[in-house]
């Protein structure tokens, strides 16, 4: 059969039952809108988290002192990681870069604060830190009370607004000793300003709220000479490539075990890969749950086309009989009814995508979490839900179409 002919008959039938078919189109519009509003933010937030973790560093394995995983209780380590530990880890094959992290205290800026972090030059690579201006800290200690520092984005852009490289600033450092605090006046020479970077999900330390110095400069400031045994807050290690992270992580755990460290007591180890896996796992569970709601929406829109196509087919039995009498094959009847369902579905989908796009952009103005739903996420969401809607429309139109094609023409022509 001429496919143009089928198209003409199907379109003419759609035009005939405008109100009823409008309801089907509306059901598909709502399906697309609800599907994109329900699933879009999940994809958006998941993508945002994964992207942020990916950008948080270069194939990072973070070894934290103690067990910081539990928010209720901090397990006090019996054996602290320190500079000596780091020296053992440096020699493991596959280590691309390694940095100590020593949180020396914090600077208070009204309601905000910035951590004073001691590390080395490799932190720039490990933490994917970008300089807005100036240079990054060096590895050799200046052995001076004037400490070279790099300022995180918020520190130079908000807290010390107007500060520039090569300027010296005096700040009061708050150092915690057990349950007491000490104040120490420090003189800092700004050698670099860091670019803004996204906050790492689930980690309280905002990478924009830091003042980074050479760890040995800080030990000098604190008059620490026996620094090899001073407990570090963390050691960051970079693997040479993403796929070797797990292998390197296992080697680190083995070395630390050989050194007498107990995993999840003396230290906790988390890699970028673990974090991505964790985030994906959580979101996939959430996504599975939302899929139940999505399936219900899909079922309602599909039932609407099933019911309408059944009514339409019943009403048109005589017409179908006439078409069969003038030469339409069973398959022609099936394809004409399928085409009719498909046209309704596609009209609904196009309008739904258009309205869904507008609604998501309107919601972005009122809900912060919707900001993660960018255009590529909207397109991705549509690419998931649209084929599902089309498939369900075809499946649910197929049964009425099959019934219509099975009725003998002589019976269909007599149908009242």
């Amino acid at each position, binding site marked *: *059969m*001429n496919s*143009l*002919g*089928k198209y*003409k*008959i199907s379109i*003419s*039938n759609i*035009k*005939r039952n405008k109100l009823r078919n409008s309801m089907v189109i509306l059901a598909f519009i709502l399906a697309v809108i609800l599907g994109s509003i329900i699933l879009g933010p999940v994809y958006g937030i998941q993508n945002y988290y994964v992207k942020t973790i990916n950008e948080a560093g270069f194939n990072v394995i973070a070894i934290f002192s103690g067990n910081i995983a539990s928010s209720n209780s901090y397990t006090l380590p019996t054996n602290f990681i320190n500079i000596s530990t780091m020296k053992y880890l440096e020699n493991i094959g596959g280590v691309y870069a390694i940095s100590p992290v020593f949180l020396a205290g914090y600077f208070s800026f009204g309601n905000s604060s910035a951590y004073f972090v001691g590390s080395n030059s490799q932190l720039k690579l490990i933490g994917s830190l970008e300089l807005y201006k100036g240079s990054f800290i060096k590895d050799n200690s200046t052995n001076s009370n004037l400490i070279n520092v790099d300022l995180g984005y918020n520190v130079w852009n908000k807290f010390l607004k107007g500060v520039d490289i090569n300027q010296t600033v005096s700040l009061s450092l708050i150092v915690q000793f057990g349950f007491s605090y000490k104040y120490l006046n420090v003189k800092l020479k700004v050698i670099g300003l860091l670019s803004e970077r996204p906050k790492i999900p689930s980690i309280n330390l905002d990478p924009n709220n830091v003042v980074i110095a050479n760890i040995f400069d800080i030990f000098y400031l604190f008059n620490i000479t026996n620094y090899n045994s001073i407990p570090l807050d963390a050691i960051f290690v970079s693997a040479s490539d993403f796929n070797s992270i797990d292998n390197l992580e296992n080697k680190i755990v083995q070395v630390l075990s050989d050194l007498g460290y107990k995993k999840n007591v003396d230290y906790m180890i988390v890699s970028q890969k673990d974090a991505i896996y964790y985030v994906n796992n959580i979101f996939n569970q959430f996504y599975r749950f939302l899929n139940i709601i999505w399936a219900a929406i899909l079922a309602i829109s599909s039932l609407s086309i099933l019911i309408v196509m059944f009514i339409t087919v019943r009403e048109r039995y*005589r*017409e179908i*009989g*006439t*078409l*069969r*009498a*003038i*030469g*339409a*094959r*069973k*398959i*022609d009847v099936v394809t004409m009814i399928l085409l009719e369902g498909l046209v309704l579905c596609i009209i609904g989908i196009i309008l739904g995508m258009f309205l869904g796009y507008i609604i998501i952009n309107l919601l972005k103005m009122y809900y912060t979490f919707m900001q993660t739903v960018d255009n590529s996420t909207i397109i991705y969401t549509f690419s998931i839900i649209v084929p599902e809607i089309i498939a369900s429309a075809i499946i649910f139109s197929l049964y009425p179409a099959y019934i219509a094609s099975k009725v*003998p*023409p*002589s019976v269909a*022509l007599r149908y009242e």
Partner: protein
Amino acid sequence: MNEVIIQLENVYKAYKIGNDTILALKNINLLIKKAEFISIVGPSGSGKTTLLNLIGALDKPTKGKILFNGIDLTQQNDKEISKYRAENVGFIFQTFNLIPSLNVWENVKLPTYFSSKKGFKEDKIMELLELVGLKERAFHKPLQLSGGEQQRVAIARALVNDPQILIADEPTGNLDSKNAEIILDIFKNLNLSGKTIILATHNLKLVEYSNRIIHLYDGVIKDEFVR
């Protein structure tokens, strides 16, 4: 003129209604020659429509053979049967059966979508509408036409693929006498041009014009008159 176009051999048609089986046609044997004008008459329920449906391959016999130019239609698949209906048979129904959502021109064109005959030109639609006197109503919808006009559209539709056989089931049953006359004139002319016309009717004028009258009674050919 003597070439057999349709042949029915020992045809039976039974319908099952609940637990009962009703024999609508019993042992029908019939030869229909090319360019014959046949009227099938008989009381309601005698099997006229069933016989037309079998000849037009809208239904299959319970038993027996129906041959079209020597080919057994009962052995054909859906594709072959549909081709037969599209290209060799034109149906005209008592209730016209036009597609209300399509205009006159589109209704007439409809059978061409199902035909694989080459060389169809759209000008033919207007020629046929002129033949049935409805050229000026080509773009009207069926519901804007009178019953007689709708039946003329149905005749144009039946002719568009240039079929050898026209099957009409009570074509004037829903028409007044004036419109019935017009339809009769069209049938006369079509028959003179070589079309085989088989119709079930109660219209005496149609019957009078026929060159063969088959009288069905209770599913059996009771009498046959040839002029």
